[in-house]
């Protein structure tokens, strides 16, 4: 499968997943380098006092970015299933757009290991990390 069709497939997948639509997650490609984008929306606010985006929504966004990155690598593979995630929060997520980039550290026959980094205004000041394992060949 060519890169372009892989990209189209990912963008189409994001519009067919109801929850990805709910979050408003988008992906932007520069060549084969993919960046996840979570545009700010009022409903993403978890703590109205700060205000800050909900840590769960941020985790969900990073997980979707990881899954999309796996599909870039293996466009024809089955939809990966999440085994575990570990999220580290470094800073509160302010009410602005959030970006994420995923790095597939290893993809084996059954398991993939992916690291994701999320930031807002400045890439050098990440707001959160996610590390995850995925089953890339789920049996059902």
């Amino acid at each position, binding site marked *: 499968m060519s890169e372009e069709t892989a990209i189209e497939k990912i963008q189409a997948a994001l519009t*067919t*997943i*109801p*929850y*990805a*639509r*709910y*979050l408003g997650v988008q992906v932007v490609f520069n060549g084969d380098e993919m960046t996840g984008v979570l*545009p*700010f*929306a*009022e*409903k*993403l*606010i*978890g*703590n*109205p*006092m*700060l*205000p*800050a*985006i*909900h*840590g*769960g*929504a941020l*985790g*969900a*966004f990073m*997980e*979707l970015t990881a899954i999309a990155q796996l599909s870039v690598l293996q466009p024809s593979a089955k*939809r990966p*299933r*999440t*085994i*575990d*995630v*570990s*999220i*580290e*929060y470094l*800073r*509160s997520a*302010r*009410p*602005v*757009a959030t970006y994420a980039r995923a790095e597939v550290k290893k993809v084996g026959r059954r398991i993939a290991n992916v690291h994701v980094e999320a930031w*807002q*205004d400045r890439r050098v000041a990440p707001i959160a990390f996610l590390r995850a394992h995925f089953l890339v060949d789920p049996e059902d």
Partner: protein
Amino acid sequence: MADNHEDTGGPDEAAVQLAYMAELMNKGSPQASSLGFHTLEISPGRALVRVKYREDLIGDPATGVIAGGVVTTLLDHTCGQAVYAGLKKAVAIATLDLRIDYMRRSEPGLDVFVAANVYKWTHSIAFVRAIAYDRDPQDPVAAAQAAFMLDASAGRPPGANLKPPARGSAA
């Protein structure tokens, strides 16, 4: 035991106040309210919160299973609520880390519940365990472990650690 949390059950009035606080946390948080989080049980260091099954929260259109991200958010929210319910005085709390094992997919059409329990308090950290389930807590959908920082703003006004948004950067 650290002195910054409540470790006694207290009278009924305290229970009513906690239930009220939990509803404020659910309704006052746009994300929790948008997902329809509802607290069923709350006591110092413990919380049980439900998310109703909804079609716009589906993560896999082929199966109709609710998105893992919704479970992630409910886990984070319920853990935070359990911590907040155990504080002796209201201070800002912040999730340091959240680790989740996804054991199985939840059943399409079923609500998801998260039960969270603070199992260790220190002066500055609360350690929390939680499970997510649809029918039976003994057959969990996911299990989580989290660490929360207590008094995250350390006496400063909320958000003092945040820099003002750079001009033109707003979404």
